[in-house]
């Protein structure tokens, strides 16, 4: 079962979405509009997110995906279709006996100037059976842009785990605290 959801944003919205498996989410963000989108899922999904940005529009996207025994695939496709449009995407994955893959594409055409686009992908692997793939794809065709992308993949910090256990938390509790800490540090880049 696959589903397609279309959203047309023409004002300022805050949206929380529980991502379904095999879903496509299309966001059309109109001139001067602004969207803050929180996406989450805890059971492993395959999803594609298409964002089209018009002049002066802003999009902030935060994804939090926890998967256990199921793989997660997320593809984002951000197209800057209007000048001075801004986008910030921050996708985080926590994998337990599973694999996550994140493909992020940013397109800025030649005549669309003054854009800002940021992409961050962070992955925590909770055991040796987990892995993460990250593929940034930046298609930028003019010089007047600010664009960044970054990725981290790693296990939980042993020193942190030890510290928390020494304060009396069990190993499982310590992992839980650190996973929460990992997922809570989402910083909005644009205030509108």
């Amino acid at each position, binding site marked *: 079962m696959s589903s397609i959801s279309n959203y047309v944003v023409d004002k300022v919205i805050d949206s929380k979405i529980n991502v379904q498996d095999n879903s496509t989410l299309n966001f059309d963000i109109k001139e001067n509009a602004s969207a803050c989108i929180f996406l989450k899922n805890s059971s492993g999904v395959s999803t594609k997110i298409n964002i089209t940005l018009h002049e002066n529009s802003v999009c902030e996207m935060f994804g939090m995906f926890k998967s256990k025994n199921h793989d997660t695939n997320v593809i984002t496709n951000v197209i800057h279709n209007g000048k001075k449009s801004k986008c910030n995407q921050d996708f985080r994955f926590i994998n337990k006996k599973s694999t996550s893959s994140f493909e992020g594409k940013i397109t800025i055409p030649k005549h669309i100037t003054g854009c800002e686009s940021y992409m961050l992908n962070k992955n925590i692997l909770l055991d040796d059976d987990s892995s993460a793939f990250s593929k940034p794809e930046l298609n930028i065709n003019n010089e007047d842009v600010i664009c960044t992308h970054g990725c981290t993949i790693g296990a939980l910090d*042993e020193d*942190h785990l*030890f*510290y928390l256990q*020494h304060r*009396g938390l069990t*190993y499982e509790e310590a992992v839980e605290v650190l996973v929460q*800490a990992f997922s*809570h540090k989402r910083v909005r880049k644009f205030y509108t």
Partner: protein
Amino acid sequence: MLEIKNLEVAVQDKKIIQGLSLTINKGEVHAMIGPNGSGKSTLANALVGKQGYEVNGVVTLSNKDVLSMSVTERAKAGLFLSFQSPPSIPGITNYKLVQHYSTRVKKYKNDILSLRLGPCWEQRNFNDGASGGERKKNELLQLLQASPKLVILDELDTGLDVDALKIILQIIKERKDKYGWLVISHSSKVLKDLDPTVVHILNNGSIVETGGIELLDKVDKQGFKNE
């Protein structure tokens, strides 16, 4: 209360602590001083169960076998270590962390004031962006929240300014009788201010000399050369 008999600690077949024996009772302050690399921090870390050490010997806390316990069990049994370099954990606030184990969360704000840690401390992320001194104060703050039996202070004074040190020494002195103390340092001045019950000199992984506060004067004059 804490009894260490013939403790040996090795890291990758290299012996760091050899044949160390020590008994610490409630209300006693044991100062441990020694040159860099003599095994002071290894002793502290091995006692609280840090991984990567091969530990042999007997360690009991209130007659309970410590070495067979996990890190968590040791903490719950009453071992408390103030870390030499505490980590910072972004994403979790000081207050949230304390809530996980503390028995006196209600007094947390007062404790922050008494340590002069600044008005927003509980809302700040754990040690995130904190100075070395603030981290040490935070360790003391954790001590006030826990109710341990034996407190190990590893290099208490690093990063602390004169005033902060005074505050911390005051707090320790007020609680001297409540716990047993093992205070590790390479500076004799701080140890003197604490007025320790016993002073141990650690060198090459074993206690080479035990005595009163006069040992610290000797170290001041002669250094650690034991001739």
